[in-house]
């Protein structure tokens, strides 16, 4: 469940999500900024791709993606347990 591949996929997901979080907050106070709005839509697309890539290999990040063959929501590490054996 752990290892470099998982760390890399998780970091890519965190980078994409943070980009979207920060742009959304900027847009709350600058709703007419077209460049930020375009960047936000691109960031959301990148989030979806990174989340799908992570979930396919390492299990659900969101509960809506849990439960394929069996209930796997609690199979993978919680965020504070990353890199624990």
């Amino acid at each position: 469940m752990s290892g470099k591949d998982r760390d890399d996929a998780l970091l890519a997901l965190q980078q994409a999500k943070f980009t979207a979080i920060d742009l959304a907050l900027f847009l709350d106070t600058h709703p007419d900024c077209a460049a930020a709005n375009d960047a936000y839509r691109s960031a959301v697309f990148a989030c979806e791709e990174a989340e799908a890539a992570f979930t396919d290999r390492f299990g659900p990040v969101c509960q809506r993606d849990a439960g394929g063959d069996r209930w796997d929501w609690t199979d993978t590490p919680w965020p504070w347990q990353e890199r624990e054996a």
Partner: protein
Amino acid sequence: MWTYEKAMEYPVHIKNPDARLAKAIMSQLGGPDGETGAAMRYLNQRYAMPYARGIGVLTDIGTEELNHMEMVASILYQLTRNLTVEEIVAEGFDAYFVDHTTGVWPCAASGEPFNAFMFQSTGDPIADLTEDLAAEQKARLTYDNLLRMIDDPDVRDPILFLREREIVHFERFGETLVHVTDQLNCKNVYAMNPAFDSPAG
């Protein structure tokens, strides 16, 4: 409605335990300018905010603060992993240990439990936003004080991220305060409460 994601906003990977540092960093979970107070402050202030843009900022920053609670709690969890009782006593963590073992409990570095008097929700959006600006500055300076005593790069890295977010939030709240005051009645020169005194807004 909130949904949980099994990924932190920013990675926390601490290899070496340090109970003394955990005792100091604890303040940013349950202390007077900590992340729990920040989340509770903004998420409760939303209801008295008469302007949609202000509600958006309070909701989105309040939500991000919930993630910062998880980041600080994770730092505490990882700093207190695999400690021996000898280390706990030597590193000044014994009083906390007696009450909480190594469980995460929101309190200040000086030991006071988290409580709702650590923040305000005044029902006046201008007073609230002015408090929010101060809160972000106070949280930023608390992280500055922590950074003065932290050498471990594993601990400095997430603390530096949290410090930067205080600065960004301060900017967004400043813009929100300008947005709110721009909409006041032009005769409301003393910025009376636009949420309660109806001619004020």
